């Protein structure tokens, strides 16, 4: 019996976590798993902290992931990796975009953006990889392709055939954006 695996996508509203979760869900489904993907729409999408839960295995009940339960956290922004760190299972892995987006308390100068977050997380004994997904996305042709760059990166470690990812891209990405996104995926996979 395949054990239940839990992946979290975390980021800032507007960064495209929903599209990334659709791609990932599509890949897992074609691999024959029972899959649940849970996301929150509405108010929090307006530049707030957003999270999507993805769980797969033989039979999934709860669609949500709680503290200490995630095998992998894919973070679209550094502060968000730190915010959601408690959700990581012991021995779990974090992949984060090194981009920093200031939240309103920092913009207003009420609080500071904490420094060296990736290093501090690593110092806790956590397996964390940081990449500059924004630069790669811009290289692919659009700063909005950060989500797909990160999907490219995770595709290396997730262990599903590349054809499944390509098929998922074809089915989930709007046609007019497919070229940029395929490029972004390739750059993420090479990173």
């Amino acid at each position, binding site marked *: 019996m395949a054990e239940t695996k839990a992946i979290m996508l975390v980021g*800032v*509203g*507007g960064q495209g976590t929903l599209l990334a979760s659709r791609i990932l*869900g*599509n890949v897992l*489904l074609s691999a024959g798993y*029972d*899959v*649940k*993907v*849970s*996301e*929150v*729409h*509405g*108010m*929090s*999408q*307006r*530049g*707030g*902290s957003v999270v999507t839960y993805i769980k797969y295995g033989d039979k*999934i*009940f*709860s*669609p*949500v992931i*709680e*503290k*200490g*339960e995630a095998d992998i956290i894919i973070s679209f922004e550094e*502060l*968000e990796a*730190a*915010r959601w*760190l*408690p*959700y*990581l299972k*012991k021995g779990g892995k974090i992949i984060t975009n090194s981009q920093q*987006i*200031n*939240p*309103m*308390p*920092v*913009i*207003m*100068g009420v*609080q*500071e*953006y*904490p420094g060296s*977050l990736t290093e*501090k*997380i690593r110092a*806790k*004994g*956590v397996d964390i990889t940081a990449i500059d997904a924004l630069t790669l996305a811009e290289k692919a042709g659009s*700063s909005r392709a950060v989500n797909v760059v990160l999907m490219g990166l995770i595709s290396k470690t997730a262990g599903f055939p590349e054809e499944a990812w390509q098929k998922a891209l074809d089915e989930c990405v709007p046609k007019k954006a497919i070229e940029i996104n395929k490029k972004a995926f390739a750059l993420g996979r090479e990173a």
Partner: protein
Amino acid sequence: MAGLMLGNQAVARGLYEAGVEFVSSYPGTPSTEITEFASTYDKNEMYSEWAPNEKVACEAAIGASFAGRRSFCAMKHVGLNVAADPLYTASYTGVNGGFVLAVADDQGMHSSQNEQDSRNHAIGSKVPMLEPSDSGECKEFTKLAYEISEQFDTPVILRLSTRVAHSQSIVELEDRKTVRYDYTKNPRKNIMTPANAKPKHIVVEERTKKLVEYAETSPLNRVEMFDTEIGIITNGAAYQYAREALGEKASYLKLGMVNPLPVKLIKDFAAKVKKLYVVEELDDIIETHCRKIGLDPIGKELFTFIGEYSQTYLREKILGVKNEYEQLDDVIPIRPPVMCAGCPHRGVFYTLKKLGVFVSGDIGCYTLGSAAPLEAMDTTVCMGASVSGLHGFNKAMRGEYEGKAVAVIGDSTFIHSGITGLINIAYNRTNSTVLILDNSITGMTGHQNNPANGKNIYGDPAAAVDLEALCHAVGIDRVRVINPGDLAETEAAIKEELAADAPSVIICRKPCALLKTVKHKPPFKVDRDKCKSCKACMKIGCPAISMVDGKAQIDNTLCVGCGLCTQMCRFGAIQE
């Protein structure tokens, strides 16, 4: 064929397969996507529309049911309060074609102003209510709801939660079938005068008894026997959490029909287990029913009335087991939702803050005007309450606040239920000033067309409400339209209308910055030599502007070139 579907998408698929021909809804998170997905089907088979509010949607669906067609409407939990009036009497008339109303509760208040439990409306209206636990059930229960509606001659409510509506799981697709009934005039069934309604109430009570019998053996309610030390009666998303938390260490009675509740089925299950729990989010409805039939389960004495449950919460409460995890010592700044860069509402709220006026707020993206640094809002209750509330505030203050109080309301919200409040302002006369923030779309729920923007749900041209003419027609003489992207114009207009000795409406018209039809300018730049670090540009709370090394800096991935910040800078440091 099978695929991953949102719960809401699966409901739409269920509508299609059930042969539904008429769908009318008002958007509301987390219910919106049901109708959006419904509108992706061929409109000649299943027609969809956005109604001005939930009451209209519900009444339109009742009309379609009278016509002998399977009909549907969807709304969020607070929308059902608006639609409660037709629902409670449709319970008496019953249906011709099956009629199903979907309501999505928002446990955890991810995007809502309260956390009410819609099961109370099912009890109040004496209407059966089904509650799925995943997308597969969303589709199956939707189809079954139509069978129940027609078999028992009743509307049926389908209850969702944020977690079920917005989670994707696997759904098997089936074919559509056609179900139609002839229309025949039947006044005693369909005209609810007292003379007709009195005998119908007897019918409704008899119907409830029959529905209880149905609930005893319905496939909607399911027993899963494992270890009998712990027995759990549960519903909706809570079932999934309990099943994950306790696995085969407990037995389960999963109630897919949450109104009316079975008696014998529950008593039989209770007799088979040692320790009986009721695990239900929000109110203690199943628990109260258990007590009424002589059982003594563990319920709200252990579990909260507040928010969402989870597997971790239940494991801790029932088994006393906690998860371990790491966290950093750093304080992680919160990241609250904010008005988008380029949002047309920003200039209005900056001006209102500057003028220091009382702001009667409403429901929409612009409720974010209450957040720091703008903080230009005093009250927000429900859809439309900004306009009617301002009138009451001004009356009670004996006119003292008329020159320093405004209401703010979006275009869609104004159509929904702001217009009636404006009629009251004109009719019972206060010199109130109402700002209609017309961004040409229903924004917060994710860009739905509405009766004021000239497009229907399919994006086809439609009649557009002429807001200026409408305000004039209800008796407001002072109506003007301004561009809220121009701070000087906005401030002058608000000052003038506040000073006027008459009720007034200012329509602040600029489309939502996220609309695909809105052309953006390239990102603006800060000339670091000209920037005097005065932070004036920071006062508008734009997420694209921050201070870097003591000078303002604009994030070029966020800036859409709206130019509001250039009007704040006295040194010309912000340039195209």
